[in-house]
């Protein structure tokens, strides 16, 4: 092995890496937030909506879950301009991530809604609670407890998946890595450091999510 490691070229570009890191977190958080709205609306429509709407939502879910994210990104970025909707790389990335995570989110939220026993809602109604009170006091916490693990791992998957957006030159961490690599030719060093940065992000979010679960969502001890 007579390869000479040259990490200094990468560390010199630390400001670009930091900016990319922040863009990745921002892109993922925005996509997750909007994706959750899509998921909640989709889950409500799927559990209570009219039949044709349910079919449309089923088709959306199956279509997204059974095709690669990269193809979804290409259809949105290269395909939509053909019907007159031209998006910047960052906008197309956000839209593709929202469309993608929405499909996975619907199933997660639906499972959460269905995890609440119907008798609990009826009991709330028998106590004279209004629908909003029933939702806030009876349904919300156990539903959150049920979906929390899937939802948080979905966020990490989304964040890691956002690296694919570099394929259309979106400005996030992998895109920053590609820029530095093209300038310095230190391919291994750049991608090694960036992989470590992604791992640090994952570990950080694993930690934050576990802390939130312990602090706010733990079942009260049975007395």
């Amino acid at each position, binding site marked *: *092995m*007579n*390869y000479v490691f040259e990490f200094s070229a990468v560390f010199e570009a630390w400001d670009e890496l930091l900016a990319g890191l922040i863009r990745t977190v921002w892109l993922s958080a925005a996509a997750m937030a909007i994706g959750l709205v899509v998921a909640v609306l989709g889950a409500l429509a799927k559990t209570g909506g009219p039949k044709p709407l349910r079919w449309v939502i089923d088709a959306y879910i*199956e*279509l997204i*879950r*059974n*095709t*690669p*994210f*990269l*193809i*979804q990104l*290409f*259809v949105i970025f*290269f*395909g939509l*301009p*053909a*019907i007159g909707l031209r998006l910047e790389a960052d906008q197309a990335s956000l839209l593709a991530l929202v469309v993608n995570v929405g499909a996975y989110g619907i199933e997660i939220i639906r499972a959460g809604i269905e995890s609440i026993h119907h008798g609990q809602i009826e009991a709330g109604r028998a106590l004279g609670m209004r629908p909003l009170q029933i939702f806030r006091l009876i349904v919300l916490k156990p539903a959150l407890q049920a979906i929390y693990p899937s939802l948080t791992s979905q966020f*990490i998957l989304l964040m*890691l*998946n956002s*690296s*694919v957006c*570099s*394929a259309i030159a979106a400005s996030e961490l*992998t895109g920053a890595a590609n820029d530095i690599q093209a300038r310095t030719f230190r*391919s*291994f060093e750049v*991608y*090694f450091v*960036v*992989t470590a940065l*992604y*791992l640090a992000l*994952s*570990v950080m979010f*694993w930690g934050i999510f576990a802390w939130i679960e312990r602090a706010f969502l733990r079942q009260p001890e049975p007395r």
Partner: protein
Amino acid sequence: MRTLGSADILFILAALRWTLLLSAAAFAGGAVGGLLVALMRSGQIAALRWIAFGYIKLFQGTPLLMQLFLAFFVPGIFGFNVDPWGAAALGLSLHASAFLGEIWRGAIETVPKGQWEASAALGLKYWRQMRLIVLPQALRVAIPPTVGFLVQLIKATSLASIIGFVEITRAAQVINNATFQPFTIFGLVGLAYFVICWPLSLYSKRMEQRLATARR
């Protein structure tokens, strides 16, 4: 720019064989590695358990695209030059080893402890316990999530296009650059993935429901 002809469509669809071949290679490599990871992770030796745990977290905590880039560049450091096919097959195999390892560890742990104790009482040692008693029972539980992961893996092969391996996504990009019919071309490729993945997803879901009913 030229128009999109039937020869172009055939060129794209023919590249589907590379998608399938890469999926098969990655699944085969991942099955061998995954079994090793699952045995280490569920075994008695603490050091091996921790190594397997670290391996799984490493692959769950980094983007697949970075894993593929490193699979492309790391062998070069040791003087081995790999082509895009070798890098994609290597990277996806290592990736699949981690995920299949975690799925199969879960399956092994669903086998009740009494089964281990009973087979130990019959004088079986670890390997025969595993092969004759535990793995056959774990297999039933493992099939639905394994098929589910296979769908993920087939979709994941599309990322090999980014490191320059000409499978169906890369072939579509090449044709799109010449004809510029992105909606038709990427729609068609999406449909091709869907036709392969959807039946597998349905099968996985049905097997899972059958298992859930059997457990009730």
